[in-house]
């Protein structure tokens, strides 16, 4: 009984650390924050609709159906700015203290992608994608019932997804409206 209580306290404190980080910066004018909850079928179609075929399409939809929420925090600032350094340092600490496991770490011409995975319950996991490129730092926090294998499978077909023409323009139009 005590062990169960301790387990829940530990897992709760982990989620809270990442949660508190997002809570701290989501209303900050210098950041962009987007959250998407359940019912992300539109994204599912975007993932697999244009280029995904057969099993690949099914796998992507299956993966998306298991996601409970996606939260994105983006900072557009110079890489040498104090704010950027502070944010990078803070998220490194969150990852370290939260017992996140590194799944992917790539560095290419000033671009950095780190994917971390952490079990946050019996059937629940947190995936944190940290991307850093010229003047942009993004954190994508995905929560859901997903295994490491499913995550790796989703990103293994990198580059095949979402390349439809005019998509970015459409997004900018919505933002301006």
């Amino acid at each position, binding site marked *: 009984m005590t062990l169960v209580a301790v387990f829940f306290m530990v897992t709760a404190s982990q989620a809270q650390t990442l949660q508190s980080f997002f809570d701290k910066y989501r209303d900050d004018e210098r950041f962009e*924050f987007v*959250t998407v909850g359940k019912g992300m079928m*539109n994204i599912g179609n975007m993932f697999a609709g244009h280029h995904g075929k057969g099993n690949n399409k099914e796998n992507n939809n299956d993966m998306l159906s298991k996601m409970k929420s996606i939260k994105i925090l983006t900072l557009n600032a110079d890489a040498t700015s104090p704010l950027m350094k502070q944010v990078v340092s803070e998220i490194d600490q969150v990852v370290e203290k939260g017992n996140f496991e590194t799944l992917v770490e790539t560095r290419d011409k000033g671009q950095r992608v780190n994917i971390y995975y952490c079990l946050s319950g019996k059937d629940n996991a947190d995936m944190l994608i940290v*991307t850093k490129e010229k003047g942009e730092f993004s954190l994508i926090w995905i929560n859901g019932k997903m295994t490491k294998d499913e995550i790796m499978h989703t990103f293994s077909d990198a580059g095949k997804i*979402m390349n439809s023409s005019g*998509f970015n323009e459409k997004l900018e139009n919505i*933002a301006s409206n």
Partner: protein
Amino acid sequence: MEMMNELFEKYFRGETSLAEEKELKQYFLKGNVSPEHEAYRVLFEEFSKEMNETTNLPSVHAYIPKQRSMNRIWYQWLALAGIAAAVIMLLWIQFPTTPENYAIIGGNRIDNTEFAQRYTAKKLTNVNKMLARSMKPLQSLKNVREEMQPLKTLSEVRRKMTELQNKLQLK
């Protein structure tokens, strides 16, 4: 008389038994009291009166708080916990959570599900593209290995021809 004197001395030393005290009381009740013992009559009569007195004061137990049994305490706690859980459940159901799909850009909240979803999709695509770029060298290695496959076949053919030639020479 001598015996009564001894009994009185014993009484005041606090060494008399209940039977002896009863005997002393009887001695005063009978009325045949010697003059030297008259001084104690008032005392013994007072004791007798006090013994017969009744009081209307409430019992001592009325002042002692009743101790609740452990079972009762547990039941009360369980009931309270149940009520608290029910209230939490009701609040959970009654108050809908804030819309899940929204964005905060430049401090302004945008309650546009389509925008939030497209923004998310764009970010995920970007991650895919970045990963694809990073994995390109690995893909190139795979391509080189596939290109080398015919050479491997050629060397195999050459080895077989050499073996055949050797066999023919032996004959």
